[in-house]
């Protein structure tokens, strides 16, 4: 009787082990595949990939023309306090824009200057993966990370996922703080997240983004990163450039000439 029981336990144990082995063989492959598909979320090699090169040497300290133009055409509210702040494009100090690049003995000019920051329209956008409603998505035809405000439920997962702080949440009705409403572009609702859209409404009319067009120094260059003949690719070819937090693997489409 005792021997029988021992035999039974041994056989069951072996059976369970064999079963587990077979299960990992069957299931693990497919789960690995989905994980891989997610990490290369919509990475595009075909079609356009809009990108921008910011020549920080030309960017004038204290000039906010691009920011003003962008915020005006997109009805971005200005509440005048940091908590309610909505920003599509803004200026930040070197150590905030390039935290990984802060090495010893950075030149005073670099330290003192502020740098333009905006949504990087990443080739591998973490915000898109975080969005539970697919309100934010990468456009397959031109690589822009777009927002569908109709779908946004205001959960702010995308804000937590974005390593660049490029997204702002409408805590209050933005209409209260829009100085001059541009009738050509919609406003947003309280309770949705918003960010730079690379001026997709202007691109549809074959116009450059508002920031690029207003910069008096020509510090911003916009173009197709997938086209080797484009102006942005020429600049990338000729200059040493930085991407923000490139170590995270988000593959930003905004490049900086320092």
């Amino acid at each position, binding site marked *: 009787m005792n021997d029988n029981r021992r035999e039974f336990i041994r056989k069951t144990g072996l059976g369970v082990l064999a079963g587990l082995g077979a299960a990992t063989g069957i299931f693990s492959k497919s789960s690995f595949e989905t994980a891989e598909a997610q990490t290369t979320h919509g990475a595009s090699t075909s079609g356009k990939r809009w990108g921008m090169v910011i020549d920080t040497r030309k960017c004038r300290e204290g000039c906010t023309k691009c920011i003003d133009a962008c915020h005006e055409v997109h009805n971005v509210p200005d509440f005048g306090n940091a908590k309610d702040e909505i920003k599509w494009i803004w200026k930040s100090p070197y150590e905030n824009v390039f935290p990984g690049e802060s090495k010893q003995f950075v030149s005073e000019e670099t330290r003192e200057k502020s740098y333009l920051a905006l949504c990087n329209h990443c080739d591998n956008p973490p915000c898109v993966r975080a969005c539970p409603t697919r309100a934010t998505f990468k456009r397959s035809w*031109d690589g822009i990370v777009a927002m569908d*405000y109709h779908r946004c439920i205001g959960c702010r997962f995308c804000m937590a996922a974005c390593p660049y702080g490029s997204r702002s949440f409408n805590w209050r009705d933005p209409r209260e703080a829009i100085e001059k*409403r541009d009738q050509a572009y*919609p*406003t947003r*609702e309280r309770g949705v997240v918003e960010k730079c859209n690379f001026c997709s409404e202007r691109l*549809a009319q074959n116009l450059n983004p508002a920031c690029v067009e207003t910069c008096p120094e020509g510090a911003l260059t916009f173009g197709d990163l997938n086209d080797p003949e484009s102006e942005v690719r020429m600049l990338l070819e000729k200059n040493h450039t930085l991407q923000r937090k490139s170590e995270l693997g988000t593959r930003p489409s905004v490049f900086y000439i320092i």
Partner: protein
Amino acid sequence: MRRVMKIRERILIFCGLALFLFVVSYAFLQEGKAKKIPTPVAESASEQCVESREYMRANHMLLLDDWRHGAVREGERIHVTPDGRKFEKNLSTCFQCHGSRGFCVRCHTYASAKPNCFSCHHEM
């Protein structure tokens, strides 16, 4: 004395009956006086809409949903009608003929439908 009381009672009964009949038939007497269903018409009537009038009356919201999906998520910003006319998928395209949001509001108020398009889209 007894007869008089009877007549008085009868008058009371008939009055009550008349009141009752009036109250019951009141709703039927109002027939034809109800608020007319608004039938707003495009301001430039010469041009034809994207779809037939009947289709637009019943399904304009589906078409707008379709336009939104196409323009925002698929990048198809141009609507081509079966007879080859082209329209930009944009709320302001509607208002080129339909004037103002007052066009929408008239029916929506009647039907107590509250679309929230105009809290963000403010085309006049």
